[in-house]
């Protein structure tokens, strides 16, 4: 491992691409699990490239705003965001098309991760499933429709529509209701049951707290938050609803005209490598998008792992969200929040 790293470093040096010690790469990432990323990704990469990585974190809105504000002279070289945010940035002309030839490890990804938005502007590096977490000692959840059923009335929380999980939940509720006419009728159905819903949460950490305080006994959530529930003293279970699990992907993007493309590609490719994706998966941080990653059954059970699981995910196209979000939020505010 150490040898391969030093060999890589050596080959970089001989290729004449690296070694300028003052080279820096500025990345914009989600703020969670930074210690793990440092160990699995940043530190080894700095050794390979002989460069410094500057990590910027924050919530998606802040990070997007920063990329937009510095469009003329980008301070961020690459960012990891949701597929919807990537599409928004692409439509605003703030990110550059990705050159597949500069990302050899892209070939190892699941097909749906290679170009999630179909515009060649992003590449998926992790998948997440979304399902319902519930108190197995109090209730049994077999369908997304159970969220609005009588057993959970007054004891269920839903994600707010403004987050990533909100539209996913509505999509799956629609599936359970046999609704094919988009999310509008589903929002109305949630509105009719609004009094039965304890609250609409914005962050998964909020939900972890609500469930531990026993304010709610079931709620939809992304698999990335599962470890917080698995470690809790209360008996929480992950539902396998009849309609399947919802899912999404986080992607990497390259800001337009940042002048640091070569280093950014090198970093992105390293992140997509089997070696790094395995390390990050073993730390239970991100589920791999690289199909060559092999992990133990125990690790796999805590991730969104394997072709069968990933190919079965119900993914909401980013364009649907970006095109309709404003209308959804308006209807949600009128009929659900009131």
């Amino acid at each position, binding site marked *: 491992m150490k040898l391969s790293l030093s060999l890589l470093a050596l080959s970089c040096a001989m290729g004449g691409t690296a070694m300028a010690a003052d080279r820096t790469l500025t990345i914009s990432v989600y703020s969670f699990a930074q210690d793990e990323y440092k160990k699995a990704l940043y530190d080894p990469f700095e050794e390979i490239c002989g460069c410094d990585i500057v990590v910027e974190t924050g*919530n998606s*809105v*802040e990070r*997007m*705003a920063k990329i937009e504000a510095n469009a003329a002279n980008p301070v961020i070289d690459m960012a990891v965001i949701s597929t919807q945010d990537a599409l928004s940035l692409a439509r605003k002309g703030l990110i550059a098309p990705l050159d597949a030839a500069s990302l050899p490890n892209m070939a190892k990804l699941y097909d749906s991760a290679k170009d999630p938005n179909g515009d060649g502007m992003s590449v998926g590096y992790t998948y997440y499933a979304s399902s319902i977490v519930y108190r197995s000692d109090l209730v049994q959840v077999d369908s997304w429709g159970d969220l609005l059923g009588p057993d959970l009335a*007054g*004891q269920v929380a839903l994600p*707010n529509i*403004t*987050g990533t999980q909100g539209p996913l939940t509505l999509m799956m509720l629609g599936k359970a209701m046999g609704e094919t006419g988009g999310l509008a009728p589903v929002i109305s159905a949630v509105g009719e049951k*609004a009094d039965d*819903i*304890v*609250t*609409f*949460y*914005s962050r998964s950490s909020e939900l972890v707290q609500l469930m531990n*305080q*026993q*304010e709610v006994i079931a709620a939809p959530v992304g698999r990335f938050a599962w470890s917080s529930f698995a470690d809790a003293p209360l008996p929480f279970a992950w539902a396998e609803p009849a309609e399947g699990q919802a899912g999404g992907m986080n992607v990497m993007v390259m800001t337009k005209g940042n002048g640091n493309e070569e280093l950014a590609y090198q970093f992105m490719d390293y992140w997509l490598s089997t070696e790094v994706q395995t390390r990050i998966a073993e730390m239970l941080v991100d589920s791999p998008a690289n199909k060559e990653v092999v992990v133990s059954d125990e690790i796999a059970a805590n991730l969104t792992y394997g072709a069968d699981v990933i190919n079965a995910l119900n993914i909401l196209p980013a364009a649907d969200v970006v095109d309709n979000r404003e209308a959804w*939020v*308006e209807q949600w*505010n*009128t009929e659900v*929040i*009131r």
Partner: protein
Amino acid sequence: MFRNTREGLALVLPAAIFSTLLFLVPVGILLSEAFRPSGSWSLAGYAEFFSEPLNRTVFLRTLKLGLLVAGTAAVIGYAAAFCIVNLGPKSRGRVFGMVVLPLMISPVARTYAWIVILGRTGIVNGAITGLGLSDTPVRLLFTETAVFLGLLQLFLPLMIISLVSAMENIPRDVIPAARVLGASWLAVFFKVILPLTREGLVIGGTLVFTGALTAYITPAILGGSKVLMLETLLYQKVNVSNDFVSASVIAMILIVMSFSANLLLKRIATARS
């Protein structure tokens, strides 16, 4: 005090520069966004904000809860302050200390305590189900009642402190004198105590009302997204929808509400004196 105004000005200059550069200018720039949503100056941002039913609901709810909290704090505050000023010096210090104590505890901790009390497994619900008043726990959290209680508890000490200092300045004999002359307690309150403590009521009222309007943590934790207040809505506009125009509109509304409350209360206080 100063030999000339120049000396006075020189002394005040550093503070003035500091607050102008680091407070007034950035706040001014931020707030001006609300008046030029599309580049040119207009009130369109405000019209748009108030055209949405949810925003109107949130505005009215914030105003209502602010008034309710300030009103209730005044009623409880007068009773408490009256008791405190009539205590002996030793117990007065002790009770006053107990009133001030919550102010030294973080609002986050104080608000979380309400979750323990109002939650499904909390004390109140334990009593309700224990006494057989209801089979299932009653929903208390994420309601306006919870936000009201949280805000009241948060800001009541400010009202009590203001009223205690005002009442301490009432001459010792005026209340007994009024009573001896046959005034009922109600008349004593409205004709003697209230006029003599108006200043304290104005200060306490302004502090509590503006505090209730601008508190974020308490409505966020006890109300959540189902009981949005202007502050929690503002947070959503900035951090969820990146809508700085609406956020500036809300900030401006909050500032106007706070200043109006203060002016109105001052006017009431000076109306008959």
